[in-house]
């Protein structure tokens, strides 16, 4: 008897966790399918299937534009970070040199920077380079968190590769560059995909820099566009359209995260817990 009570309580707890996790997104979806006055009635189950909000979102050129901006900015940022991080993390993971531990700590420290601390200096830099209100401003500023992150995670992945593989390559006379490109990269591609995806999500979600370094509606990224989406007055927030836009930008992310679920968990925990 006691066993069944315990089991029931356990599954009840599981149920609460699942509902708490999923409900807000579920509620955004059912709201996004409501139009007109139906929007202002609280319903717990789907009551209508009206695509008017989605039509309105896709009819807004600036929103479509912001999706393209975000895709371009996040891809370019991740590409740039990966390009620099692969060789750097090989050096950090595989070569013994003085000050390596200190260097790793410094890189980790940069990824923990409060972004506001560099905002004033970056603002000057962005103005100086003449890239204010251009995607390059975001690509430049996002490097501050994507680069340390990719270096850090790739370093922990590379450290775990068996020594023998590298030793065999060295005996064969391979240079460090050949070891990276011919031996490590083919082995590491799952780690690269995970790291790239996590960095992409980070860049896609960034808000502070994108808000500060863009001025016109055509240059906005998705988070800024959604944050600034408002009606003619403060009290006329277009909730239906807002929820539709939220669903549109979130569904691809959720699908990606669910597909790469196991890898993402590995990537997230690669940083610290192995110490």
């Amino acid at each position, binding site marked *: 008897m006691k066993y069944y009570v315990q089991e029931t309580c356990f599954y009840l707890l599981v149920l609460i966790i699942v509902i708490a996790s999923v409900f807000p*997104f579920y509620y955004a979806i059912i709201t996004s399918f409501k139009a007109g006055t139906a929007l202002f009635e609280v319903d717990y189950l789907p009551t209508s299937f009206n695509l008017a909000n989605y039509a309105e979102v896709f009819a807004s050129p600036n929103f479509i534009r912001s999706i393209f901006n975000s895709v371009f900015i996040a891809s370019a940022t991740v590409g740039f970070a990966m390009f620099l991080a692969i060789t750097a993390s090989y050096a950090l993971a595989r070569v013994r040199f003085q000050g390596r531990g200190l*260097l790793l700590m410094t*890189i980790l420290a940069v990824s923990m920077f409060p972004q506001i*601390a560099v905002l004033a200096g970056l603002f000057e*830099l962005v103005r100086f380079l003449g890239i204010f209100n251009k995607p390059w401003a975001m690509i430049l500023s996002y*490097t501050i968190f994507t680069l340390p992150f990719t270096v850090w995670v790739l370093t922990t992945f590379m450290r775990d590769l068996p020594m023998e593989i590298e030793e065999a390559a060295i005996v064969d006379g391979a240079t460090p*560059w050949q070891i990276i490109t011919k031996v490590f990269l083919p082995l590491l591609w799952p780690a690269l995909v995970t790291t790239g995806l996590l960095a992409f999500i980070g860049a896609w979600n960034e808000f502070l820099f994108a808000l500060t370094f863009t001025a016109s509606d055509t240059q906005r990224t998705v988070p800024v566009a959604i*944050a600034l989406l408002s009606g003619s007055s403060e009290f006329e927030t277009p909730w239906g359209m807002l929820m539709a836009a*939220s669903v549109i930008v979130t569904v691809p992310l959720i699908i990606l995260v669910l597909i790469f679920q196991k890898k993402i968990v590995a990537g997230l925990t690669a940083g610290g*817990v192995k110490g």
Partner: protein
Amino acid sequence: MTSYPQHSGGQSLAAQRRKAAFWFLAPMLAALFFVAAWPLLRTIYFSFTDTTLTNLYGGEWIGFKNYLSYRQLSSGRVIWKGTLVDPAWWNAVWNTVRFSVISVAIETVLGIIVALILHRNFVGRGWVRAAILIPWAIPTIVSARMWGWMLNDQFGIINDILLKLHLIETKIAWTANIETAMTAVLIVDVWKTTPFMALLCLAGLQMVPKDIYEAARVDGVHPIKVFFRITLPLIRPALMVAIIFRTLDALRIFDLIYVLTPNSKATKTMSVIARENLIDFDKFAYGAAQSTILFAIIAVFVSAYIWLGKVDLAGEGDR
């Protein structure tokens, strides 16, 4: 790394590798200098000047005036000025600290509970793990908007649920009301970040050898005692790292508060007020001073935590 095979010219091999390592690291370090170190130094420099947003290069050195300065009136009264005597700044500091302490504490406890549940084998475990990843995958701005709608005073579902359960009598303006704004922010942050905590705790739990539990069970140790005496000490390193990361994130929070409770005195944090001064109020140098203080606080916090907790963040200890 351990030593490499000593074949002909073994010494020069190590030297060759070190040389390659230097060139592999140089571009990355140059990029980091360009986007992190240099802007940080410029921010600190700006904080000692009277630079304005419209005239970035016209600022003059004014020493600590943005931080603290005083002027004595002819009547003998001393007037203090600067961030350090600005009540709005101290309000923001208090908000940030309150938010960080409460949110990280709740997230840690909930994270451990969720991790313990996921650590058990049960039907549908994979689905539950997938479900808790959803809050993590949703962009912060989107969650702020979604919750803003759910917490809406007139049409929000949260008020509806609470009214139906007779927990409240009148509808609450969660995000607009001074008394509840911080609670609203905390709810959303806990919802969004507990999954991250849970996953890190779970990874820690999975490294604890199974036979320890087996031994404890054979000895008839009470499960709660097992948790506090065995599990918790063993996952402590993983937990410490997770708590540091979360606290640093909480101390610099900006986006959630900016969108969920705009301009609320009750939730304005250090990052929000610093950006407001930097960009919106044309008090560029003053905002730079506030950013610098926030940076200093975080730097002190990290050093203290690493030093006190002897946390091996780099994972170098066993290598």
